[in-house]
């Protein structure tokens, strides 16, 4: 697999979970500590920590320190995967169009 394919798989795997999507939504607008996220979503801190680990590995959230508090926020670059996907989609489709036209028409 290419690095892009691996990154795509990791991102989609991370997103393919309702709790992880809820956590992303919770840290979308402001940085939050694990306890705050857990309280907002009604999940245990262990579960939230686990999901944050997966999200961080996929590059979807980033952590930072504020004094003694460890805060998490959405990482915008990690969310560009949808855009990048369409960057590949149409070139791939056009290549398929070229192949289909030229094989059926036998050139012009």
């Amino acid at each position, binding site marked *: 697999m290419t690095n892009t394919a691996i990154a795509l798989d990791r991102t989609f795997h991370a997103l*393919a979970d309702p709790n992880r999507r809820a956590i992303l939504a919770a840290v979308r607008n402001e940085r939050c500590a694990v306890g705050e996220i857990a309280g907002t979503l009604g999940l245990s801190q262990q579960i939230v920590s686990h999901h944050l680990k997966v999200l961080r590995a996929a590059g979807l959230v980033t952590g930072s320190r504020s004094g003694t508090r460890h805060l998490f926020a959405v990482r915008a670059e990690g*969310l560009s995967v949808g*855009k990048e996907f369409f960057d*590949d989609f149409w070139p791939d*489709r*056009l290549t398929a*169009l*070229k192949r289909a*036209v030229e094989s059926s028409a036998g050139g012009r």
Partner: protein
Amino acid sequence: MAEHRSSIDIHAAPEIVFDFLVTEAGMTSWMGQWASLDPVPGGQFAVDIAGYPARGSFLEVDPPRRVRVSWGFAGNESLPPGSSTVSFELTPTSAGTRVEVVHSGLPADEVPGHIEGWSHFLPRLARTAVGGQLPTDTWSPQLSTTE
């Protein structure tokens, strides 16, 4: 709103290329597995791509120069049917035709608000777009707490 542009040179006349954009057999030979097309302004544009229903309508049909369709996915909140626009511009060249596709109105720039929607259809689409066979169950929306 994001926009994507891409182009390719095809060794065939614009009239020939045009048919691949507006006929069902032509369309499914390069995109999707099933299509229902009514290529008149306001007519239906429906193509199933890897089980994902791309839906919209023809906005402009100008043979053999230009086709514009509205584009979205049925059941997809971030990109509902008809929510974005795809245009195909065909320009005659010495070797045949240059096709430029412009996909505009995509919500990619607002992805944080569209995570749910994107994650529903992109994985399967990504696989089929690179020519891969679709495994049935590698992607699951179910909660997993064991990894």
